[in-house]
């Protein structure tokens, strides 16, 4: 029979909507409005899972997000989500969940034998048991422990759903929509403030949904309904349901997760599974209520033993009866309302253990379900009472977790027997039970008061209105932390299987500080952060060390309040969308030609252009280098950073940031520039062209573009704000191609407008000018060369980039023009001895790179003084040399270290390292650049290049770093 424990009427469930679901493969039925836990309870299920360490049978303890026991695997395949709390999963049609941490089945779990090994598994057992031999750890202990312990298993594949990140802004953020939260939102909303009201559940009301209370002498649910309507109709109020505010950050920033689609089988089209918010607010009000405490007695973890608030929630909100015969244990008046609820709904209450009268529960009996409890009365007489449900009410812990997130510790209150919020983060107020003001009347009052205050502090005018009235409640609570005289294990932290004896042991072994005890026993370190456990643990530590709870103190809570899916924090920033991708102006054209691309920073650059399908990178590179050096090649160099610098003091500024002098550079000329960091090491390099008296165009390396821009801005705004200059990044504005090779000029001459002369005489090496091409299209031409060939860079406004590359290839056909990629570019620059990333590694000075002639001795510049520190001038500092493989055939690898032939590989014998390598089609052998001690003196010698990572050991000849055209005849030709 289905739903045997469902009441015939009542509850906030939609009985007209039946939902089918399965648990461990067994089919069940529930109603819309159920949680997985309430639907299973309605179907008579009480066993939900096995515990972490001892594999003890566990049921449901709570009805909320604080649940330590009822963790299940939700969904299947790549949507599988482990460790999901059955108490917060909203039921949907087709829901499939499985219990976890059991084998072969929930009912018969072989590893429950761990219970018998309990003496071995006490606090600190990892530290004590698995000390030696060390080699056993990885091979034996760790895999075995991982199999046996732990919670659910994550899916293997990628999550098919998507997640969103979002910002939200408001004047007043209200966290929690119970009586206090609803009142606060109403007050702030009526005053006109922009309000965001968040609640982790799907409906507003908080405890009013599960306790039959009265407001203004009418059922409290009427007030909830009317207030919800008003809130929904106020345009300045935004209600975020299923949204947990999980953390507080500096300056009024709150982290929240909205579970947009978790209550559905799969998300609706175009809708994310979850959305993470960064909420920025002027004021916030914490109305998160309180969490009931458990009691530490023998075998207190047996399924069927539940918190009183959970019992009332299942009965009143879900019309699901968690048992037929109940025992109610209470240390406050809360238990009495549980008794009333149970009796009204036909559950027999066989015993009421009111500890305030001196009665006490000793231990529970039963295995997979509680069958009886042993009670001892004030006269010491014991009796056994049969039951299948035990309700525990032992006071409340205010949900003050968020108040701790910026470092403040809660303070113990002797009267309330609870920790209350300590110093509050700026801008935050706390209302109702979260502040230890547990009655409904206090919640309503606090809500309105804090709502009004927050609105006023945010600059609004609060409206006066009356606080609704609630029935008086008498607060009379004397907590019972543990019942020592009992049989069986007494659990404090259910999720991590921490017992009171573990805490005693920790204390005995010297872990008396609360922080040490926590880490030694792992109390409160499970996914529930000990929401139901911590305070009892502190009380027991106090008891065994003769300290009060306030002397023991407490650990603090950290974000997140409840577990957060990492995917929701990443949003769309995953896989290829982790960061933006930048495409060059010729990208479309290059893709059409079948180019192979490589990621360089954010850019996708053509690595090589295979001539036929399957041509490998080496063959393609060799062909492209030869083609360029023999005829002509074109390469997209738009990725290089371009910074436009203008102003009266532009030249002075460049003199200060470059090692060379730019104030002497004539208009229409380009100069190579080297930039240092203030500590003297090379920062970046590139060419700068003078386009006018007060106008320069700087190029940077592709990787350095952003940091050079920030550096220039720093130098101007922070160091020399008196200089009259301005600069703009124009990297994206110009498409730029390098055309290199003996036929480069001939190719260009067919494209440029007829009146323009680019002959060697009128446009020599390192010249630049603004020209027009293809009939009045503006362009900039620079005669600069990275390859060492006769070469030009031509820049056109970005929108002409695609057309230009096509035009170039078209007219270039008869001159043998081919496209070349990054591989060929790199090979040609190494052949030419130009330094790049491998050499500009942040540890090299101009002198190390053989560029000391680039440092003007007539002026200061950034980094000049410190580049001349004594240690950087030492004779044996590694300096730039060229290296040639003696055999020619052996691969050289960047990163290989240099050693003298016959010397041992040791730090003392290390002579430097290889920074860049390539196969040189021009020299027909492997070559490289490297930094070698006393490099100049060793020219012509032979050393070993040893790479233990790639297992190579190659003899190399030391040579000049310029391998090709040492006198530069080609590039000047």
């Amino acid at each position, binding site marked *: 029979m289905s739903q045997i424990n469902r009441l015939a009427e009542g509850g906030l469930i939609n009985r007209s909507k039946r939902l089918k679901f399965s648990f461990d493969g067994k089919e069940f039925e529930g109603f819309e409005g159920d949680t997985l836990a309430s639907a299973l309870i309605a179907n008579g299920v009480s066993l939900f899972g096995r515990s972490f360490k001892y594999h003890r049978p566990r049921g449901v303890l709570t009805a909320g997000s604080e649940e330590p026991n009822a963790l299940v695997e939700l969904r299947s395949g790549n949507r599988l989500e482990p460790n999901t709390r059955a108490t917060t999963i909203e039921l949907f049609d087709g829901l499939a969940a499985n219990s976890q941490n059991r084998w072969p089945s929930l009912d018969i779990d072989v590893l429950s034998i761990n219970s018998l090994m309990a003496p071995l598994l006490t606090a600190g057992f990892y530290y004590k048991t698995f000390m030696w031999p060390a080699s056993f750890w990885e091979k034996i202990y760790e895999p075995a422990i991982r199999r046996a312990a732990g919670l659910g298993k994550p899916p293997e594949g990628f999550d098919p759903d998507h997640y969103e990140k979002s910002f939200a802004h408001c004047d007043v953020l209200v966290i929690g929509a119970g009586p206090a939260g609803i009142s606060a939102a109403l007050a702030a909303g009526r005053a006109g403030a922009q309000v965001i009201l968040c609640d982790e559940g799907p409906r507003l009301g908080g405890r009013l949904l599960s306790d039959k209370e009265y407001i203004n002498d009418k059922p409290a649910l009427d007030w909830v309904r009317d207030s919800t309507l008003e809130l929904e109709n106020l345009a300045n109020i935004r209600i975020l349901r299923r949204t947990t505010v999980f953390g507080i950050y500096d300056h009024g*920033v709150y982290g929240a997760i909205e579970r947009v689609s978790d209550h559905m089988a799969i998300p609706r089209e175009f809708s994310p599974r979850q959305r993470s918010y960064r909420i920025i607010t002027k004021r916030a009000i914490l109305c998160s209520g309180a969490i009931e405490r458990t009691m530490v007695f023998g075998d207190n973890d047996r399924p069927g033993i539940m918190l009183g608030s959970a019992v009332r929630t299942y009965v009143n909100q879900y019309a699901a009866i968690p048992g037929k015969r109940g025992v109610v244990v209470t240390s406050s008046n809360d238990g009495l309302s549980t008794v009333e609820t149970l009796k009204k709904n036909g559950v027999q209450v066989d015993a009421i253990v009111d500890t305030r009268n001196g009665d006490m529960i000793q231990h529970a009996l039963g295995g997979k379900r509680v069958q009886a409890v042993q009670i001892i009365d004030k006269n010491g007489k014991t009796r056994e009472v049969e039951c299948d449900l035990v309700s525990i009410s032992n006071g409340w812990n205010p949900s003050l977790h968020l108040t701790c997130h910026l470092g403040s510790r809660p303070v113990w209150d002797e009267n309330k027997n609870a920790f209350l919020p300590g110093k509050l983060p700026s801008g935050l107020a706390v209302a109702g039970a979260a502040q230890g003001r547990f009655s409904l009347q206090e919640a309503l009052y606090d809500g309105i008061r804090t709502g009004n205050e927050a609105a006023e502090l945010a600059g609004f005018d609060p409206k006066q209105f009356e606080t609704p009235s609630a029935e008086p409640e008498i607060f009379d609570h004397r907590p019972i932390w543990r019942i020592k005289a009992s049989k069986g294990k007494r659990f404090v932290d259910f999720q991590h299987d921490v017992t009171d004896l573990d805490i005693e042991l920790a204390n005995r072994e010297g872990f008396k500080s609360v922080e040490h005890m926590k880490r030694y026993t792992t109390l409160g370190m499970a996914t529930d952060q000990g929401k139901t456990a911590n305070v009892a643990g502190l009380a027991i530590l106090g008891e065994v060390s003769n300290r009060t709870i306030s002397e023991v103190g407490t650990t603090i809570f950290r974000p997140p309040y409840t577990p957060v899916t990492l995917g929701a924090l990443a949003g769309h920033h995953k896989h290829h969308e982790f960061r933006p991708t930048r495409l060059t102006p010729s990208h479309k054209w290059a893709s059409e030609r079948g180019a192979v691309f490589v990621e360089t920073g954010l850019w996708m650059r053509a690595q090589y252009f295979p001539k036929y399908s399957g041509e490998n990178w080496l063959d393609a590179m060799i062909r492209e280098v030869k083609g360029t050096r023999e005829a002509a090649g074109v390469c997209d160099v738009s990725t290089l950073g371009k910074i436009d610098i203008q102003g009266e003091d532009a030249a002075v500024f460049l003199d200060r940031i470059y090692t060379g002098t730019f104030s002497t550079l004539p208009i229409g000329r380009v100069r190579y520039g080297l930039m240092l960091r203030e500590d003297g090491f090379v920062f970046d390099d590139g060419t700068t062209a003078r386009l006018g008296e007060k106008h320069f165009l700087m190029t940077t390396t592709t990787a350095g573009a952003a940091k050079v821009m*920030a550096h220039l*801005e*720093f130098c101007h*705004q*922070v160091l020399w*704000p008196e200089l009259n200059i301005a600069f703009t990044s124009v990297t994206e504005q110009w498409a730029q191609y390098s055309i290199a090779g003996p036929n480069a000029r001939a190719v260009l001459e067919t494209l440029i407008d007829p009146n323009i002369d680019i002959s060697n005489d009128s446009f020599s090496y390192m010249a630049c000018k603004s020209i027009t091409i293809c009939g009045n299209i503006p362009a900039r031409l620079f005669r600069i060369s990275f390859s060492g060939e006769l070469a030009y860079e031509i820049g056109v406004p970005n929108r002409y980039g695609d057309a230009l590359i096509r035009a170039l290839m078209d007219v270039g056909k008869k001159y043998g023009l081919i496209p070349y990629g990054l591989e060929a570019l790199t090979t040609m620059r190494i052949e030419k001895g130009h330094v790049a990333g491998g050499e500009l590694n942040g540890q090299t000075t101009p002198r190390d790179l053989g560029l000391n002639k680039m440092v003007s001795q007539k002026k*200061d510049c950034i980094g000049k003084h410190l580049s001349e*520190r004594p240690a950087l001038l030492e004779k044996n500092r590694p300096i730039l040399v060229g290296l040639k493989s003696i055999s020619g055939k052996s691969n050289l690898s960047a990163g290989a270290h240099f050693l003298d032939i016959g010397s041992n590989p040791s730090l003392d014998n290390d002579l430097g390292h290889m920074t860049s390598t390539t196969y040189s089609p021009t020299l027909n052998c492997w070559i490289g650049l490297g930094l070698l001690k006393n490099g100049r003196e060793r020219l012509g010698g032979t050393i070993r290049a040893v790479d233990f990572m790639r297992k190579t050991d190659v003899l190399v000849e030391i040579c000049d770093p310029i391998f090709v055209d040492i006198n530069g005849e080609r590039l000047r030709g």
Partner: protein
Amino acid sequence: MRIPCPFCGERDLQEYSFLGEAGLKRPDPEASDAQKQFHDYVHIRKNTAGTTSELWLHTYGCRSWIVVQRNTLTHEIFSSEFASDTLKELTK
């Protein structure tokens, strides 16, 4: 964290990049002990636990370098102004 930019107003931390201590004056390159002064300028920091002056770049905003007065223990921010303005004060 929220940082006020004197040009753009209050903006989220992720729009900014942090550099370090503000108020350091680049030494006179002509000084006789210039190398020592540059060493201190580059490497020696107060590393205050408490209220500090820091340089931030509004990278994804107006690209102003700003000086922020901030308490490193509480993260409280007291003021922010253009670095170029504070320097003009410094050299007055």
